[in-house]
């Protein structure tokens, strides 16, 4: 059942377009960060400041994750998990899955598992590609962080700490998984709606709106 579901989803243009959009967004972010870092204009905001302190490909990956965690990654999860059941109900093919000698729970498990795997894989593409493009641009350097200790009692001076690329890589992977799981928790609602409707848009929207 899981192999069948993978086969169905991987053949869909929706899955491919979603992946291409994530690829394009991550490349655009990398280009944007690179252009900003070279300009004299100082970007506002904590993340912008932090990025200017770092001329490392890993910083671009972090920036991509930060920029997409609010909307794009939740959309990826809502589409990957909320859409398959509602679509199959609309096409009528779900009816024929239900007359197979397979329990409802196994069917639902396969749909959720495949949706989760594809959504996480697509979400990982964003920081991964941004890091690769960023590394090509800035190189593979340690990251300076301003989250160090306060070194003065009269002025809040932050001590810069440098994290090795390997250590940052693990943190980036964990951060990506954290964002993915957070989005996954929300789209549980999308799955709930998708089993009750044939309206694909309603199922996807239910995963994003919370």
């Amino acid at each position, binding site marked *: *059942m899981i*192999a*069948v579901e993978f*086969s*169905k989803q991987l*053949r*869909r*243009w929706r899955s491919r377009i979603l992946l291409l959009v994530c690829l394009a967004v991550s490349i655009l972010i990398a280009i944007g960060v690179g252009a900003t870092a070279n300009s004299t204009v100082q970007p506002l905001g904590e993340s912008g400041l932090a990025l200017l302190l770092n001329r490392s490909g890993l910083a671009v990956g972090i920036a991509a994750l930060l920029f997409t965690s609010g909307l794009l990654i939740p959309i990826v999860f809502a589409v990957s998990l909320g859409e398959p059941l509602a679509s*199959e109900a609309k*096409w*009528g*093919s*779900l*009816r*024929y*899955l*239900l*007359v*197979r*000698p*397979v*329990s*409802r729970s*196994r*069917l639902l498990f396969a749909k959720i598992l495949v949706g989760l795997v594809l959504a996480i894989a697509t979400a990982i593409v964003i920081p991964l590609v941004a890091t690769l493009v960023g590394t090509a641009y800035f190189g593979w350097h340690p990251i300076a962080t301003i989250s160090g200790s306060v070194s003065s009692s009269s002025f809040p001076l932050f001590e810069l700490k440098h994290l090795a690329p390997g250590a940052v890589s693990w943190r980036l992977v964990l951060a990506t998984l954290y964002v993915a799981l957070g989005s996954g928790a929300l789209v549980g609602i999308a799955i709930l709606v998708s089993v009750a409707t044939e309206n694909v848009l309603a199922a996807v929207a239910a995963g994003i709106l919370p």
Partner: protein
Amino acid sequence: MLPPAYIGDMRGQPVVEVVSLTKRFGSVVAVDDLSFTVGPGQVVGLLGPNGAGKTTALRMLLGLIRADGGSATILGERIRPGSPVLKRVGALVEGPGFVPHVSGRRNLELYWRAGGADVTSAHIDDALALSGLGDAVERKVKTYSHGMRQRLGFAQALLGRPELLLLDEPVNGLDPQQIVEVREALLRLASAGTTILLSSHLLAEVEQTCGFVVVLDRGRLVRAGTVAEITAGSDSAYLEVDDTQRAWELLGTVPGIRAKEAAPPNGIIVHLEGAARSDLVAALVAAGIRVETVMARRNLEDAFLEMTGRSGL
């Protein structure tokens, strides 16, 4: 609780046994205390007007919806969602349904593998040969016409050479040539021992395909029996003669006849209005026309309208 309506000569374990099956949707009783059985190798037509409860009954038989009362068993196993016995059942219910972005053949493979079975046990080429879809099976389903989707749905129902076929309006949307092909395929399957329960509102189709009929109206069983039992009546006669042309002309002169229908190749159905069947035989024989067969007959439509009191479907 009503006993199931046994149809025909029931030998061995019933393939389908429905006992006091009931389904309500709010205040509407879609299926009301329905009981009938289908024996091995029988081709049974579930007949009724729109809203009679045919599709709802089939959905309960497939475990797609839960019955509010009664029970449905297939091959001795009580049906629940995902029952193991469903691997021995082929179904076409509420129209075909396919993943549009893959080919017809790929759809069949995915459907079969979803049940946990190896694709070689599906006998896909046999099913496709019976459905007559041809090379179109390699095209994406989104390019199919309604008739092609219906044929693919029929092929899907035939996968794995099922012992029981549950078909909901199987010729719906097909052109006359396709209807004939599906009918012939069903008759071939029946002759090979497949049990078939099909629903239809096309009375002539049921009459030509099924040996047995279960008539539903407003969710209730109206009558069950062989087509011959259902259509038997005193208001018409079926005659087989050696010269249909002369017999047709002669019968036009016999009083007490309301209408005539040709029943090729050498039969005539006569709707009586006062005349006795013996009068017809006497007139034909007197004119030198040999009468091979004479039997009381109504068509299924007449019988159905009489049973349900409807003016049409």
